[in-house]
């Protein structure tokens, strides 16, 4: 024993204290702090995503419209990059050295650990060359993706396009990851959840060199890939193509529906663009070009353009008059070149007089329907004009004019029918009457509806009283029934018995004797019922409008044609509608000379010098105040 024997306690204490400190530290990092487990998982797991092929889209006749083509994205994971031969990469991918640096920098700014796209959609040949040399480029890999391809360059607005997800979507939906594709518009967007399928994943165990070792936990986290569902569209690809062909020289829209089902047969918005313009790399290059085009080809006029319905609206005026029992089929009105009260004058054209309701539709008499509006608004059932007006408006609401009809496409707009309050605000309560709003009777003034709503109105006439929400998809692979809302009938407030005289008038519009407004829409063997319209356009030439359905009994097609700045309805809109009907019902068009006319190969010939059947001139002060 020596004098320093007590110093053994110093040793013991130091050793025990260090041991306890270490145990406390281990308790902290192993038991209390759970974050290390997450780090360990992200360290050792390598997730390989398997992208499903997007669903195909067929037309109503089973013709394929949209399919897929493989594309190759070069991906990089910045953390795994090692120095590599830039010259060779540049040569394979045909890019500059600065480009390579820039692309790597942008990938790094996104994430070091998560792979991002180095170069999108390289050709199969380039991808194959790179794939072979990939072992020289740690951090690089080739990702196979699919791009949309189209059998016919048509229906861009209906089909929509597919683009890369943006930050907004990434924040909202965890399914998507940077670089994923998503339907941006049209059917691609509306049916994204079916078309995209379900991404699969294989989770591997990887080591520090990022080499995969084996399936992680025996594949417990793996998910098999589900291919996207195929869709059968209601569109008739051939009719769609034909419609786009006819509308090529014009600005406007053609919407064709199957009245009994609400199925959209054709949805044409002109001018348009070929759908493959907005695919893959071309999307980035060309989108700006399309967006800045002054004719606005990206604008879906069929759903978003709000036009006055013009004289086509007279059919609805007649229906409301009958429903309110203020007129009957045999009610007659005199008309001598127009409607006159005091110094208020709305012109009309030369036609025999008096006319009953059927004849008034046939000849599109302005006076008749202004008188009808007068009867409706001065109906003794109501205490005031405003009250009668509101009742009139209620009828229109049941036609779906004031709200989007609910087609699958998200960019559909509503129409506009001002309410009584609107006129109260402008003119003051009880300071307006039928004369003030008389242009509504002939589809002008504040009235605005979209071509889709106009086509739907035509379908209501064809169905004699109801419509089914227009839609673009009739079948989804593997789903028994699509939205039941797409097979229920929406009845209007007009009894079906009231449709007879209006439909008869529409028949005569096309098939009547001299003075009928659209005899040029007549097709042999098919009874086409139609109605012309010409919308006044304060900014230029009037718009040419035509609605029609055929055949008269058990109609198969209802169509609305709107051609901007082309004058009378009868000039271009009626022939276009007629050709579309012929194409759809007969599958071939015999009147090729008529096609030439529409497509401008024959210069339009002015057939007669008499004023057209549905011009309107208003000679009063524009406020329409009662003198």
């Amino acid at each position: 024993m020596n004098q320093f024997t007590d110093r053994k306690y110093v040793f013991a204490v130091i050793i025990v204290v260090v041991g306890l400190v270490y145990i406390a530290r281990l308790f902290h990092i192993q038991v209390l702090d759970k974050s290390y487990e997450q780090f360990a998982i992200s360290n050792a797991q390598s997730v390989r995503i398997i992208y499903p092929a997007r669903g195909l889209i067929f037309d109503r006749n089973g013709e394929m419209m949209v399919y897929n083509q493989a594309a190759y994205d070069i991906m990089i994971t910045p953390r795994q990059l090692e120095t590599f031969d830039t010259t060779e990469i540049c040569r394979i991918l045909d890019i500059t050295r600065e480009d390579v640096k820039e692309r790597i920098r942008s990938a790094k700014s996104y994430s070091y650990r998560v792979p991002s796209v180095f170069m999108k959609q390289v050709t199969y040949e380039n991808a194959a060359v790179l794939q072979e040399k990939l072992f020289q480029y740690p951090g690089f890999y080739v990702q196979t993706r699919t791009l949309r391809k189209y059998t016919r360059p048509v229906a861009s607005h209906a089909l929509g396009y597919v683009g890369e997800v943006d930050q907004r979507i990434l924040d909202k939906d965890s399914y998507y990851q940077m670089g994923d594709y998503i339907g941006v518009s049209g059917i691609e967007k509306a049916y994204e959840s079916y078309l995209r399928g379900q991404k699969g994943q294989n989770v591997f165990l990887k080591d520090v060199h990022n080499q995969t070792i084996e399936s992680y936990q025996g594949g417990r986290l793996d998910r098999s890939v589900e291919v996207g569902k195929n869709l059968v569209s209601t569109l008739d690809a051939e009719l769609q193509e034909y419609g786009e062909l006819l509308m090529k020289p014009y600005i406007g829209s053609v919407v064709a529906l199957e009245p009994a089902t609400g199925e959209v047969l054709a949805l044409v918005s002109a001018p348009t663009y070929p759908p493959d313009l907005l695919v893959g790399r071309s999307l980035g290059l060309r989108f700006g070009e399309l967006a800045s085009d002054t004719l606005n080809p990206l604008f879906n006029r069929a759903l978003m353009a709000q036009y006055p319905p013009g004289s086509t609206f007279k059919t609805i005026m007649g229906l409301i008059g009958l429903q309110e029992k203020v007129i009957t089929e045999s009610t007659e009105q005199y008309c001598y070149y127009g409607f006159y009260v005091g110094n208020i004058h709305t012109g009309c054209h030369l036609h025999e007089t008096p006319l009953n309701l059927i004849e008034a539709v046939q000849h599109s008499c302005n006076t008749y329907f202004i008188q009808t509006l007068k009867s409706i608004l001065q109906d003794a059932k109501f205490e005031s004009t405003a009250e009668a007006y509101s009742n009139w408006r209620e009828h229109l609401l049941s036609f779906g004019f004031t709200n989007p009809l609910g087609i699958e496409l998200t960019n559909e707009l509503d129409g506009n029918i001002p309410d009584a309050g609107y006129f109260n605000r402008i003119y003051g309560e009880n300071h307006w009457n039928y004369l003030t709003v008389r242009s509504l009777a002939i589809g002008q003034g504040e009235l605005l509806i979209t071509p889709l709503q106009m086509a739907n109105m035509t379908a209501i006439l064809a169905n004699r009283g109801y419509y089914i929400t227009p839609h673009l998809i009739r079948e989804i692979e593997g789903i028994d029934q699509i939205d039941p809302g797409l097979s229920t009938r929406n009845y209007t407030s007009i009894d079906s018995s009231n449709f007879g005289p209006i439909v008869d008038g529409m028949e005569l519009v096309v098939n009547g004797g001299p003075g009928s407004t659209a005899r040029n829409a007549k097709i042999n063997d098919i009874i086409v019922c139609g109605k012309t319209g010409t919308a006044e356009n304060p900014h230029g030439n009037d718009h040419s409008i035509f609605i029609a359905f055929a055949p008269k009994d058990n109609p198969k097609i209802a169509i609305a044609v709107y051609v901007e700045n082309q004058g009378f309805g009868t000039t271009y809109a009626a022939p276009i509608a007629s050709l579309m009907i012929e194409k759809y019902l007969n599958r071939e068009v015999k009147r090729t000379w008529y096609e030439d006319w529409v497509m401008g190969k024959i210069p339009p010939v002015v057939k007669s010098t008499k004023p057209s059947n549905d011009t309107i001139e208003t000679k009063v002060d524009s406020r329409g105040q009662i003198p």
Partner: protein
Amino acid sequence: MDRRNNTFANIDWLSILLWLVILSYGWMNIYSANIMEAEGGIFDFSQRFGKQIIWIGATIILAVLLLMLDAKIYTYFAYILYIIMVVVLMGVLVFGTEVNGAKSWFVIGGFQFQPSEFAKPITALALAKLLTSHTFEMKRITDLLKALVVIFIPPALILLQPDMGSTLVYFAFIFVLFREGFSANIMLLLAALIFLFFTTLVVDNAFVLLILVSGGLLIYAIVAKSSKKTVLIGAWTAVTFGALYGINRLTNSEFPLFTLGLVSLIPITLVLFIKGLQSRMYKHLKILAGVVIAVLFMISVDYAINNILKPHQQHRIYVTLGIEDDPQGVGYNVNQSKIAIGSGGFKGKGYLNGTQTKLHFVPEQSTDFIFCTVGEEWGFLGTTFVILLYLGLLLRMIFLAERQRSAFSRIFGYSFVSIIFIHFLVNIGMTIGILPVIGIPLPFFSYGGSSLWAFSMFLFIFLRLDASRLEILN
């Protein structure tokens, strides 16, 4: 008399049991850390766990041999072994093979052999021999210097290899000197300087200065028993500092607080020094000197870190101290090591089920970072078990060392305790991110033949000495 001569009756079997448990548990973890590459069974000798089995087998034979040798030979041959070892350490610098940037290996046949590992027990023998010589007196400076020379010749040679980790281990012998009577005050001073060293790195200099000055004043107040003078000195210092601070602000100069503090201390220091000399108040002068030395030390540490160390060395120190964060760079190893251990949780992922260690996320996963495998696969239970094993072994060794009649055996025993403790402290401390990454193995646990042999030699020489504790050895 029988008992005195019968080594195996007097052997400490508890130590041997602890040694065997650590050895086997270590091997199990080496096996787990290398299982991914293995194709044959556990006797796949191309693998580390296969090789380690050979090493363990050889070690047991070595242990038996050491126990059978006469205890007296160690005292006889201590210096001779030491000289041979110094020659070998010089030889390795010339003829050695470079592995991982350090020329510390002899390669003979298929086997690698690292002489610096064996230098530890042999240095302990030489130190024990020196300290037990009849003329040795710890308080005599020349004797102390002799001891320090014996201790620091091997690490000086090892530093030339260069192997920083093994060199630092030799500082553990200071503890042995402490046990044998080295001044406790100097030990405290050393501890204080080490503490001040780290505080300087971690805490703002101005704050450390404030603490030092306040501490000096407090001691002065106690020693001089005059609160009046204390307040006077404190107030003077504060006023000087306030004035300098004001001038600094008004002139928009941007001198740091630390500089202002230092300058404001100069006049008061000179005055106190002169007054102290005049009135021969040596006690007070000592306090003043203490504060001045501490401040100078702090300045030189700061200077050394910022101007002498290379940027990557500074960085490594700062990352370890938690001042800087760098999970991808210098901190990568520590970060991965903490992830592996932390992800084990309370019960661990199960034996052979670790991912971090096997997939090479953790560097050196069977040598320096073997503790990660324990942490990941056996969880908190496993790591605590390992720590308790070492605590048990170390405390048992202190007990054994203290029961020696012979100072030689005791010094050798304490050498073993100190060396094993420093390895335990640094190795585990580094894997859990408390200490900087210094690559030294966990004794008996890490893969490696040389270290296993050397530590086992160390242990069994001591156990042999302990078995002969009833004899007088000198």
